[in-house]
């Protein structure tokens, strides 16, 4: 009665015969280009070859991208990449918002945000992407962290990558905190006042940390530029560097299999039965 289940096979899509022809094996002479499209393709290939001959970047790219992944790898493994793309989206929209934003505490900041939201072409859209993208990034960071924890992917030899990930989590929180002030409306002003005072409740160093964040004992004219510099220069640079280290370790150590996938030991390495 146990009928063997067949994996369903998708039908072949109707592709043109050129696409179905096997690619020429690497290292063989490419045919002479005939059409203008082929000429353009050859030009592109020779540029890439020129760069690769002088940098050997293709080896690094292959090392980074074409890795072996364990059995059982599933969609949960994409949360880290999703977080990185959320960061890249924040970086791109942030750079363009900086073209219109004015870190002026006497009301210019609020006016510039109002100008972006109401007058700039697609301004509200780009600002909306940055504003909601921040929330998306924080959510993704936590989902990624939860995946790593539940799958036990933080265990030896990946502990250092967990530590780097925690640093990235803290930096993401700093981004959220410093970015919240920038519109300089009532909500961001009071949230910043309260946030700085929470920082200040750390014993001994807290009061000095508050003074550092405000640039003085009271919220003053330098507070907003200070937050802006931290938000758009210091922390994004640190996050980019940390993502580099995080990715290097992922490529170097490989990803771990889900906990429910049991590794089959090699027959040569298996222990002899006693």
């Amino acid at each position, binding site marked *: 009665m146990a009928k063997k289940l067949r994996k369903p096979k998708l039908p072949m899509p109707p592709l043109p015969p050129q696409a179905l022809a096997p690619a020429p094996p690497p290292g063989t002479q490419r045919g002479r280009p005939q059409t203008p499209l082929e000429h353009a393709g050859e030009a592109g290939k020779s540029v890439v070859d020129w760069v690769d001959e002088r940098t050997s970047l293709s080896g690094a790219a292959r090392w980074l991208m074409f890795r072996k992944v364990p059995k059982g790898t599933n969609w949960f493994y994409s949360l880290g990449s999703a977080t990185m793309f959320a960061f890249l989206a924040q970086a791109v929209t942030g750079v363009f918002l900086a073209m219109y934003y004015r870190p002026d505490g006497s009301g210019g900041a609020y006016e510039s945000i109002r100008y972006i939201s109401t007058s700039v072409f697609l301004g509200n859209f780009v600002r909306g992407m940055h504003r909601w993208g921040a929330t998306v990034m924080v959510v993704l960071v936590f989902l990624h962290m939860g995946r790593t924890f539940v799958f036990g992917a933080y265990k030896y030899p990946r502990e250092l990558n967990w530590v780097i990930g925690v640093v990235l989590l803290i930096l993401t929180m700093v981004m959220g905190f410093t970015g919240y002030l920038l519109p300089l409306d009532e909500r961001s002003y009071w949230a910043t006042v*309260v946030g*700085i005072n929470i920082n*200040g409740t750390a014993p001994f160093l807290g009061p000095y940390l508050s*003074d550092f964040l405000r640039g003085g004992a009271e*919220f*003053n*004219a330098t507070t907003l530029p200070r937050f802006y510099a931290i938000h758009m220069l210091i922390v994004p640079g640190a996050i980019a560097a940390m993502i580099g280290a995080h990715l290097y370790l992922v490529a170097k150590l490989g990803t771990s299999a889900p906990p429910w996938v049991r590794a089959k030991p090699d027959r040569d390495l298996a222990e002899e039965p006693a």
Partner: protein
Amino acid sequence: MAPTRRQTKSKYTVDRGMPGAFEGETVTRRRFMTGTAHGAGMLMAAGITLPALAFAIGPIFKNVTLGWQTIGYPDDFPNNDYVPVVITTSPGIGEAGKSTVYVRARDPQVDKTPPNQYNRWVAITSRCSHLGCSVLWVDAAERFICPCHGSVFDLEGVRVSGPAPRPLDRFYTRLFDGYVQVGPRYSVNSELRIFSPRDPGEPLDGIGQYLYPSRPSVRKL
């Protein structure tokens, strides 16, 4: 030592048979040059990094004292009710640099602290001592109430209930040329003892004053 490991050289130049070596010399010319190059590099890096760092953390050490601001005539302030006045705490940033202060005349029946020239009027900040939201003087209840986390303070600004760790901060006041003036801020503990200004959230009773030390950026008068 493993036999394959290379024999380490003696640290004395004499033992290594270097020309010009003298007794007890350990620094070779190569080592001296390497050290000099590294030292010069570090010096130059420090020459850029340290001033930039000091530039960023400089405000921690800069004392900014709030000047005296005229708020009205002595008759403007009764001794049984607070009058809100707006003072500038940070110049040059408009509304964001302004703060409300509640002022009343000193009432010897209520205020038991010894009188002096700086407390003839009681000026209490609207900045909640919990996390810095704006407290509101509610006349009917004779209480300061914070909308954020529900701290309640009495007529003297002493905490009645809620999460605030100390009474509301005060400002020095004085009579100047027939006008009432408000001066620098100071913090008080629950016995109304005067301390240099602390940020909200920092207790001043018990060991609080040592856990949250006075800062160079603000001092008491």
